[in-house]
């Protein structure tokens, strides 16, 4: 379960890397695959490790 939900919060650097490598669809698919159903298409982007 931990791995499933952690995937939806992304650090800024990781997010920029996703954009620079044009892997938006791959990333969304990976998140969706980690969830039980549906594509999670909302990402919270942060610059720090969240205390969650």
């Amino acid at each position, binding site marked *: *379960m931990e791995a499933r*939900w952690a995937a939806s919060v992304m650090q800024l650097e990781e997010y920029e890397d996703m954009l620079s490598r*044009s892997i938006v669809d791959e990333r969304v698919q990976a998140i969706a695959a980690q969830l039980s*159903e549906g*594509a999670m298409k*909302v990402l919270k982007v942060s*610059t720090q490790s969240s*205390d*969650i």
Partner: protein
Amino acid sequence: MLPLPASARLVTIFDTNVYHGISFERLRGLTERESTLGVFALASVWPCCELLTHCGDADDTRNGRARAAVERLLLHAGRDAPDGRHLRMHLDGENTLGLGLFNYQPEHDLREYNQIATVIRDLVKQHWHGTTEAQAALLEHIVRMVADKETAFVSDMAAVARVEATHDNSRQQARAKVVAELDGPDGVFLVAKRKVQETAARLNIALGDNETSGLAAIAAAGYPVAMHFLKRMTRRAIAFPEINWVHQQNSYWDFHMSFHAGWGATTQRRPMGTSYGRPRTSCGCDGGALGCFSHAT
């Protein structure tokens, strides 16, 4: 209401600290890349409020930094219109839950979001000069609102930390028992159930036990980051009652933000599951500077 463009493949929401830390140049590059790739940025209302609390008082040492962050937020999550740049905003966490579980339409809050989006548009357009009385009053209202929310959060966490002794257990034993329950397989479900009960009470909705449990399961599955976050906070409060939550009050805003990393708004008590793409229902938003996408599916 503004529909999401058909090209939107991903919706992204930045935390306050991103807008504080990123340079305009870096943000422009990122925004261009988002546009090319069909990534659609929205603002969350509480980062707007957090930043605006430092924008009204010229003597506030964080004033310049906060204003620059607001400008970056508007650059990232705004759209150009004839009367200035309009902010696109997502529903906040608590209201996302109320809408998702009970189809509650937060019309008052949406009107307030609209005012917040409008004041951001106008103050940036004015280059922060010539603040009107109405704008100053709204900024003061936001300062009070943020302070009230933080005070309520600290009080709530203090209440959570209060575990009383029972007939069979000392206070320490009772505390350990609750922590063990939270660490168990039903920990997330238990906090989700409490959150459902709180939300129902806030909205004056009566729920039976079975209905509460069903909605708790939906909340746990539909808002996984928020519910895990809540479990962590609850556990910390109970396991470490000496924590002074005044120093942890930013956790309240993080909690709100964490609702965005989920299935988002739901209708008819079922998670949408399939993300954003097309508008489904009117949200009562009257346009203006606010584009509310909370009912999009």
